[in-house]
């Protein structure tokens, strides 16, 4: 299996570069080492014995069906969950050793439907983490304006609006800007464009693709949409039932001989006679 092969290759590389028991790889900013996550009352773990390294500045897309463990994996990275077995390292430090608050302010997080605070203005939403980090007002305001420009929202028009006064696409833009608030090196995105209409979704995907290249952040992006994965990823990891079944560059992904990859590839050709 491809996942297993990849896992071994990683381990071998680690052993060559450093002899100690669990050293972080030089450019691996996030590392999952034989991670299992199970919940009480469920026989099958949500994530099973999974190892994965995410390198600095790559956009890793976690692809999989509902229930394949994608979101669980994201939540393990920012310590919303702690692994039942194994270790998750962020910047070489186990998440169990991180102060959860410090860790989360170090990692941007974007979710479906944005989860914006309805009682805050757009500016207050975007400036939340800098404010929690006690930035002074001038720095905070210029950061908010900068971020709104970055996601294509004119501050003079949008800064004082409330989330209820925005369209779905605009809300999602604010969600991205908020996640970038205090300039975190890592960005976790959980189906951020999933609830948008197809046209707006395509628009945001393209813009985000450009943005992610410009920002140079380490991004872990969860989706069940292969098209989106192919567009945004610098690397695609396919999950099935809590295990990695494929790990490749997007251009090689469609050639992988694995039933789950085939299933996803088949999903691209949904309209007979129309090639994707």
């Amino acid at each position, binding site marked *: 299996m491809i996942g297993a092969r990849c896992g071994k290759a990683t381990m071998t590389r680690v052993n060559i570069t450093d002899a100690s028991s669990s050293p972080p790889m030089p450019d691996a900013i996030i590392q999952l080492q034989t991670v299992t996550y199970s919940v009480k009352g469920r026989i099958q773990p949500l994530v099973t014995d999974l190892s994965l390294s995410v390198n600095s500045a790559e956009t890793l897309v976690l692809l999989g069906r509902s229930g394949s463990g994608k979101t669980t994996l994201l939540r393990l990275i920012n310590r919303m969950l702690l692994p039942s077995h194994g270790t998750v390292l962020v910047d070489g430090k186990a998440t169990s050793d991180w102060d959860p*608050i410090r860790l989360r302010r170090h990692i941007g997080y974007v979710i479906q439907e944005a989860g914006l605070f309805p009682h805050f203005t757009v500016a207050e939403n975007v400036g939340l983490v800098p404010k929690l980090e006690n930035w002074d007002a001038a720095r905070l305001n210029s950061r908010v304006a900068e971020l709104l420009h970055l996601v294509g929202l004119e501050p003079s028009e949008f800064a004082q609006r409330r989330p209820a006064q925005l369209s779905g696409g605009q809300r999602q833009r604010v969600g991205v800007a908020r996640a970038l608030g205090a300039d975190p090196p890592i960005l976790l995105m959980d189906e951020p464009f999933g609830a948008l209409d197809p046209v707006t979704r395509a628009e945001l995907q393209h813009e985000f693709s450009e943005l992610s290249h410009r920002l140079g952040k380490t991004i872990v992006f969860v989706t069940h949409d292969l098209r989106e994965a192919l567009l945004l990823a610098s690397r695609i990891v396919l999950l099935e039932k809590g295990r990695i079944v494929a790990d490749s560059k997007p251009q090689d992904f469609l050639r992988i001989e694995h039933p789950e990859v085939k299933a996803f590839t088949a999903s691209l050709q949904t309209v007979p006679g129309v090639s994707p």
Partner: protein
Amino acid sequence: MTPWTFFITHRAEIFDATLEHVELVLIAMLIAILIAVPLGMFIVQRPALRTFALGVASVFQTIPSLALFGFLIPIPFIGGIGRRTAIVALVLYALLPILRNTYVGLTSIDPAVLEAAEAMGMTSTQILFRVRLPLALGIILAGIRTATVITIGVATIAAAIGAGGLGTFIFRGVAMVSDAVILAGAVPAALLAILADLTLALIERRLRVH
């Protein structure tokens, strides 16, 4: 004597009784809010205590008000004849709407918002005071409004145990079989209830964000 002439001739007395009534309600509401809102915040994370607290508060609501005043009279410290007993009873009545609305308000927040708050690195105290409470405020206030209107009504019965207020006229009027005297207590009490309802509704609308 027509109600109107009675009202004119006794206006100073009615005014004093109204003030007394308002005072009773305000004191009782203040105590009820100070108990029910923190208690509501406390039970959000504690399912066992939640069932118990909401259950007890519901039981108080089902006791007929006159009976509750009666029950309290023989109890030492909080009981006896007079205002103190009345305030205790009014507080017990006001608890449920405030407690229930505080709980509902705090728990009916969009899970995505709470997930985002946690993922952004807010502490649980910050989430409570900057996210949960502000978002629940409208619903909590609706509970306070319901409780206030109930308390204004129930407080008229407090006159039966010597707590004063507008109920004094109602009981006196019943004893004298005089509509004019009953109305001198009932009309200001009804107006107070309407006024409180409208004022709190206005504040509530300003605070509600959804």
